[in-house]
Structure formats: C-alpha cells, structure tokens
C-alpha cells in the first residue's frame, strides 16, 4: 500500500504540469554612494532624517538654494509629506542645506 502511494506520488509529481509563474519579483539596489551629503555642521542630522524617507541624491542633485528656498523645501517635507521633524531639527537642517548647498553661482 505504502509503495503504491509513494509510486503514485512520484508519478503525479512527474506528470503534473509545471506551475505557471504567476509572480514577478525584482530587487532594487541600495542607495548609491553619490547620494552622501557633504560634511558640515548638522550634516549627520540631515543625512539621518532625510534618508528616513528618500535617498539624499534628492538633495545632492539640486542646483542649491538660500535659506528661504531650502526652508520651503523642509516645510513641504513636514506639512505635505508628514516628516516628523522637531522645530529645532528643521531649523538645523535648513541651515545645513543653505550653507552646504547654497544658491547657484
């Protein structure tokens, strides 16, 4: 009996149609090194807080801006995208960005 069951199990395995691939999966690379923020006061804070939601190449690629422009970006991250930044951290990050990624010359 047991032999029959095993035989059938093997046969069924062999005769069963191949499973149709229903799932497609890709794996994305980690953040690229070019996204690393330049050193400067509060750079660690900016790196940690910003990359919580997005890679920091979003910052590195920008033409740069003054405190008003970067302040508007940071405010947008808080008000529109819900970034949980304290007022002090938002101020420090804005200062860092306006200093390190200042207006285009």
């Amino acid at each position, binding site marked *: 009996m047991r032999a029959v069951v095993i035989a059938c199990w093997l046969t069924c395995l062999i005769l069963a149609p191949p499973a149709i691939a229903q799932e497609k999966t890709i794996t*994305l690379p980690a953040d690229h090194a070019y996204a690393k923020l330049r050193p400067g006061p509060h750079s660690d804070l900016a790196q940690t807080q910003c990359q919580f939601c*997005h*890679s920091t190449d979003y910052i590195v690629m920008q033409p740069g801006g003054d405190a008003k422009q970067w302040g508007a970006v940071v405010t947008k991250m808080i008000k529109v995208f819900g970034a949980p930044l304290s007022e002090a951290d938002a101020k420090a990050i804005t200062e860092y960005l306006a200093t390190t990624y200042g207006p285009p010359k």
Partner: protein
Amino acid sequence: MGQAGSLLLAGGGLLSSAQAADDPILAGRPLVRYPEKTDLILLTSRPPQLETPMKYFDRAITPNDAFFVRYHVFPVPTSVDLGTWRLKVHGRVDRPLELSLDELKTKFPATKVIAVNQCSGNSRGRFSPRVLGGQWGDGAMGNAEWVGARMRDILTQAGVRQGALQVTFDGLDKPAFPTVPDFVKSLDVSRIMDDPDVIVAYQMNGQPLPVLNGYPARLIVPGWYATYWVKNLSEIEVIDHVFEKFWMKPGYRIPDTPCGCVEPGTAPARTVPITRMTVRSFIAVPAPGARVAVGQPVTLKGIAFDGGYGISEVQISADGGATWRRAQLGADLGRYSFREWSAVWTPPAPTSYRLMVRAFNGIGESQGTLPLWNPAGYLRNVVEQVDVQAV
C-alpha cells in the same frame, strides 16, 4: 558605450564622440544597472529615478531596457503576483469590476498605439534661473509601441453613472507612511470617452512591461505628459467631482497663461494642470563635443515629437541658427510617436560649429530660440543645440 575618443563610423566624417560627462547637468551622475534595465543615468535611488542616455534617441523606438524610470513615493512595487493582482474599477459605475490580467487581455479588443512618454519635468536641469526639483537632463522621455485595452471600453463595461465627472487612477506604489500623499491622478470622463487611444497597456514593444515601467499594466495617455500614465495600475475610480489631491493640486500645475510660462523668476497668478506636450526635437548624433572631419559628410540623426498633431517638418542649422534647411523625415509611426529625422552635413572648414534642430507639428507649432520659463520647470521646448569641432 566605448571610451571617450572611440571611433564611430556613422556618416564617415564623424571622428569621435564625446561623453555625456561634458554635460554640466549630468556630470557626476553614475551609470547604474537596475533590474530589467541596461546602464542608465542615476537621478535618485529611492524611489528610483533613472534617465535614458541621449545615444538611444537616434531611433524612433526606445528599447524597454533603456526606457527611463520615474517614481514619486517609496516603496515602489518590486513584486507582482498575477494570481492576486486585479484591476479594480469602482465608484459611480453600475457594475464594479475586478479584472485579472487575463480578463483585461481577453474581454476587451486589444488596441495598439505608438506614443511618447515624457516626464513633465524633462530637461528641468537646464532651466535658467534654475529651479528646485528633479534635475533631469533630456533623458526623461521614451517612445514605445503600447498594446492594451481601451479605457473607454473598460468604462463602458462598468457602466458610467449619471453625474460622473472624472476618473482617478492609482497604482501599486504606496507610501510607507500614511502622511505621504499617495500618487493618484485624474482625467475627465470625456477625455477618456472621446479618445480611443487612451488605453490600459499590458504590452510594451511586444513584451510585458518592465516592473519599473509599470508591470503588469499602466495607463497610456498619448500626447499628454507622463504624469498621467499611472504605472503598476491597480485601482480606477469614477467620481462626481474634480479630483484635487496633492499630485493634481498643487502638484503638476503650469501657469494659466497661453504659453504656460511667466517672466523668469516670478510666480503665476493662477495655475492649471499640465496636459499636452510641447513640440521638441533633439540631435542624438553627433554628441556634444564630437570631432568631425573637414570635407567629409556627416549624418546628423535624432528624433522629434509633439503632443499629438504629428511632426510635419524638421529643420537643421549648422551656423548657430542663421540659416536653416530641411532634414529628411523617417517613417511616420503615428502622430503620437517619435519621428526620426536625418540630415547629411559636410563641415567646410576646420572650426567649431553649432548644430541646431527645430521641428514643426501639424498645426504649425514649433520651438522658440529662447527658452520659456515657469517655476516648476515644465514644458521645456527650446531649440536644442550641439557644438562640434571640425578638424
């Protein structure tokens, strides 16, 4: 791509091709290889945004693996199970639908359209004064043959109710945090019912879509910017009002002026959603900084496109825009497609030349010699130029 200085034989007179690194907007950006993709120019890693190198725009159809990638929120879908994926259609309809990919393919007639998919902010990096936002070079565009089900057939199957005004489109990309606005776009019901070329595509250049280009299905809105072409589409809702969530308002708006532009550096009084693409044309060969041989003919090549009237003429100039002559147009693949163009040019003297290209569409629209400006960095369509050196 070979080393800088590699010999290209196209046209005979083209001695060498410069690297994209000479381009200030692309300088420093690494070439990266993502799943189902060839080497593309990295804009951002997370969410992924990848740009197509200009060398691919010497032909009408952009290969799937070279097609640009643009997502708005993270995480993006990295796994799709067709056993459970359904395209839901609900809202103000008589018969809500949940379509499997198989049903999408068999229940509706398959229709084909060759159409350009271009990011609203393509070439934003070239704005002056500069604007914040994704600093694309010119590679946030591509052209493919899309096959899918007509969106109006799907709506007819569902039965649109009285009072329906717009349709919203949502994909599998869902932000990790509930505070981040989900990427949802809307079209008027009439925009869909009047246009048989608005389709839900499940095939791109004869293949399933790459995951990063919207597998298993994406919306195709020929003539309109890519912001409406929702990827990894999963949910369609018919609504009785104008949808004004973040990615429709304040996102993706242009000044409510005839040119969609304002004085550089100023803010518009009113804005409207961006829609139809402007006329553009590009020189893919030779590349900027290429060296060409005096007295030897060089074949200039590239593409032109517009928002759906079709390209009727392409002109090139080899003297910085002082004189223009007609280029030869390639096969007409339809009014929404890239149109290939080529022109043979023989540099007469050993000096530098500014090559320029401009296109005209079926209603006489063309490109300006001075760029138009708006604060979001959209609609760029200035005449493009490539400087080469004859030796």
